[in-house]
């Protein structure tokens, strides 16, 4: 129990993009009369142990977003227990929700797992602990009983999201950020059943609607408060899919746009959304652009119709191209997720994907990033691969082989060659993502990019894409015509391709340094008195903590 006897919770997780999951939890426990605070997760247990010793919270809640981070979280929890921490330790998030047995088995210091939507479960857990009652009956948790893990019945989802208190952002000072950037959630859930995604199973587990929308008025009011009272200028909508559920969603989105304009926010703020490319409709996007939408993230995933069918995306690749044209016509920046390889890929599909990337972003409008699909917990893909006996790796780090062994060699080469480019914070992919995001931002009192500067960024991005796609194509051609046991990814032609790609990346990164330097000199010509923010506003828009980018894929 904390010093003032009010039951308290210490919530620990990444604070990237505000971590709205933790902030909704915090506002819910505070609304219920408990004390609480959020602390950033660190791989080094020492600061967390010291804080826990000082605060002595009743509950410590870990937000475990990334499956592969489970062992690191386990080490922190182990250190807490070793230091004599007697708080109730619980873990929540996508992965623990789907795999509580594994989590509780591998993390013996944890008492429970809060499964799926956690606000009301955590409140009830704290109420029972506060009253000194047994907590094992709380709906929605998993806990140990001897060697067994007990999964309590799940509680139904909260139908009306407007009943939730707004996320607690009391400790965030947006005005101190170079580009004050707040995260907002307008909805929860997604009705699509893509094979690689666990969002639908996550919300489906508790029943209820597959996508719940907050009222546009409530969303706009939250934005209005964040802007006028806390200084936020850029809003990142964290909705799983901002435009999902067809006409209803378009009307909803347009109502939000109208609300933003009516609230006097037009021209004062910018915002970003995520959606599928077949949900990009010109009229809706134009209305959103009028209200301040400048960036769209799209789950493109594959550029081949068979590849899309393998992923159960229920769409054609042509929709991606059309969406790209719509967003270009509205002068918006966009970026996208792309899985060049998936468990059912063939060489032909991969070749088509490379050709698709060329036609999609060969002009350098945005940077072409690429990875392979991973069978995360809770996804239909994982179930499918398990049924086929193809799951490899560990529960925390799942793996598989491709059906064509040549694609395993291709993927190994791809990882070796593009690891820095695609998966590190200082890699060309990330640097260009930030630049392209910034290049089309339009905010008042800020130095926005000139057309010639945008053209330069686009030229460098086109080069970056061109070199990468050439190397991918050349490697695939080589691997296709070479017997699998003669493919040497560290020597011969493939090694030359690797060196070539890395040399081009280094040259372009050096040139981007020149862009920076040039922009620095141009500051003296600025008319505005505002301090010109440095490049990289999009760094805050990553869904991953910088230290996790390398391994996130």
């Amino acid at each position, binding site marked *: 129990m904390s010093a003032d006897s009010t039951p308290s919770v210490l919530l620990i997780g990444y604070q990237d993009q505000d971590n709205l999951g933790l902030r909704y939890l915090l506002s819910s426990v505070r609304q219920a009369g408990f004390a609480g605070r959020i602390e950033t997760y660190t791989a080094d247990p020492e600061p967390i142990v010291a804080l826990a010793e000082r605060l002595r919270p009743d509950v410590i809640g870990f937000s475990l977003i990334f499956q592969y981070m489970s062992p690191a979280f386990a080490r922190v929890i182990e250190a807490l227990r070793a230091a004599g921490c007697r708080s109730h330790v619980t873990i929540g998030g996508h992965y623990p929700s789907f795999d509580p047995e594994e989590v509780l088995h591998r993390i013996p210091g944890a008492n429970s797992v809060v499964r799926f939507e956690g606000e009301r479960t955590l409140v009830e857990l704290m109420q029972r602990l506060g009253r000194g009652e047994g907590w094992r009956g709380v709906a929605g948790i998993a806990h140990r009983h001897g060697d067994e893990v007990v999964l309590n019945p799940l509680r139904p989802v909260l139908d009306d999201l407007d009943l939730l208190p707004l996320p607690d952002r009391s400790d965030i000072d947006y005005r101190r950020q170079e580009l004050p950037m707040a995260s907002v959630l307008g909805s929860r859930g997604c009705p699509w059943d893509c094979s690689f995604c666990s969002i639908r199973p996550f919300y489906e587990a508790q029943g209820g609607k597959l996508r719940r929308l907050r009222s546009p008025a409530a969303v706009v009011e939250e934005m209005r408060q964040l802007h006028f009272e806390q200084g936020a200028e850029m809003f990142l909508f964290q909705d799983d899919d901002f435009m999902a559920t067809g006409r209803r969603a378009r009307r909803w989105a347009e109502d939000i746009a109208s609300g933003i304009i009516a609230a006097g926010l037009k021209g004062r703020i910018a915002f970003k959304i995520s959606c599928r490319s077949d949900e990009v409709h010109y009229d809706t996007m134009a209305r959103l652009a009028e209200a301040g939408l400048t960036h769209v993230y799209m789950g493109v995933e594959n550029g081949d119709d068979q590849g899309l069918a393998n992923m159960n995306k229920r769409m054609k690749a042509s929709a991606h191209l059309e969406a790209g044209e719509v967003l270009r016509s509205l002068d918006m920046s966009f970026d996208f997720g792309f899985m060049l390889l998936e468990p059912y890929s063939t060489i032909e599909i991969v070749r088509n994907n490379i050709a698709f990337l060329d036609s999609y972003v060969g*002009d350098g409008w945005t940077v072409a990033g690429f990875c392979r699909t991973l069978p995360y917990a809770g996804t239909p893909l994982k179930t499918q691969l398990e049924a086929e006996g193809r799951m490899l790796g560990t529960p925390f780090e799942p793996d598989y082989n491709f059906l064509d062994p040549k694609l395993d060699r291709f993927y190994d080469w791809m990882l070796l060659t593009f690891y820095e480019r695609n998966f590190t914070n200082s890699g060309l992919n990330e640097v260009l993502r930030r630049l392209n995001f910034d290049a089309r931002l339009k905010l008042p009192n800020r130095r926005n990019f000139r057309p010639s500067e945008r*053209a330069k960024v686009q030229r460098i991005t086109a080069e970056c894409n061109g070199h990468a796609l050439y190397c991918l194509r050349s490697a695939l051609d080589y691997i296709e015509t070479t017997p699998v046991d003669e493919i040497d990814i560290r020597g011969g032609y493939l090694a030359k391709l690797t060196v070539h790609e890395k040399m081009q990346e280094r040259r372009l990164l050096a040139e981007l340094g020149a862009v920076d330097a040039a922009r620095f000199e141009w500051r003296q010509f600025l008319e505005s008195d505002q301090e010109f923010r440095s490049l990289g506003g999009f760094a805050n828009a990553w869904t991953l903590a910088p230290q996790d980018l390398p391994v996130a894929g």
Partner: protein
Amino acid sequence: MAGSLESRLGNLEELCIIIIIIILGGGRGPGHGGPSDSVTADTSRMEALRRILPPGVIPDPFSPDIARLSLEAIEARLLQVNAELTRLRSHEAELNTRLKELRGSKTK
């Protein structure tokens, strides 16, 4: 055979001399002493040629005989060619954007 080669070299030499005469007015550029030939010192043509090929421009190298290139050499050359093509294509796009921008601002 030798005679034929000699004859070809002779023709080539003759051609070079004619070209030099046309362009430089007999091989004597300004400052070489003596009055220049007013008929062959065609300065306007020289200016025109200079505009086409400004000083310092390096012409395209001769294409090597690819039949004699090894697999490795072709692979390496292809990497160079593609890198250059990628650079040039994206540079062309950047220039076109700037051109449109400038022409657009001119018409305003």
